[in-house]
């Protein structure tokens, strides 16, 4: 068990290093958001490994909170990043009539 946990922790460390490289280099902020979410998943995995090593349930609420905080943080930053519209230069285009639902899209 100790050897397996050591190998797993080494793999998680390598993964975290690679993700940090992407977080540093990432051409756009969206790549950084993706990298940050993966980094949080790796942190969750590391805490789970420590919990398996000690065989305690002490860390389980921490895992839960980390999962939820990662989702909320990612969604908040992504909403902040994205534009309002799919259309080109939407701020300059004036819309005389309300936008039509494209044909072939099913109303849901």
């Amino acid at each position, binding site marked *: 068990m100790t050897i397996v946990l050591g190998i797993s922790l080494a793999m*998680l460390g390598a993964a975290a290093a690679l*993700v940090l490289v992407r977080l540093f280099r990432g051409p756009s902020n969206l790549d950084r958001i993706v990298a940050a979410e993966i980094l949080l998943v790796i942190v969750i995995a590391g805490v789970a490994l420590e919990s398996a090593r000690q*065989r305690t349930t002490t860390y389980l609420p921490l895992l839960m909170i980390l999962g939820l905080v990662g989702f909320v943080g990612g969604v908040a930053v992504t909403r902040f990043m994205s534009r309002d519209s799919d259309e080109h230069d939407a701020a300059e285009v004036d819309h005389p009539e309300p936008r039509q639902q494209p044909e072939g899209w099913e109303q849901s």
Partner: protein
Amino acid sequence: MTWSSVLDVAGAVCLLLGSFLCMAGAVGLIRFPDTLSRLHAATKPQTLGLILILAGLASTLRTWAAVTTLVLLAATQFFTSPVSAHLVARAAYRNRLVDPETLEVDELSDALDRSGRDSTR
């Protein structure tokens, strides 16, 4: 070979596979060229890798309190990670980070063209 040792071995295998999947996702995150394919690589550790690690932890701990908490965590991860991945992909499309040459099917651009507006590109 008792049940507890069987569960220990299964948990160790699950932890190992989950860590390997995390590392594979990180390698994909480094090597893939654009945001959408990086998102594809990134959702592997978010779902399957985390599920494997939590299954390994559950079969190591073997108490009902731990199992229910881990199932709850896995369920919330299953529900939230597609939402955030969809949001990131939509923001990438809106910020013109998607290269249409790399797409096999681009239904959103077709639908925007048909709606009579200028499409993104």
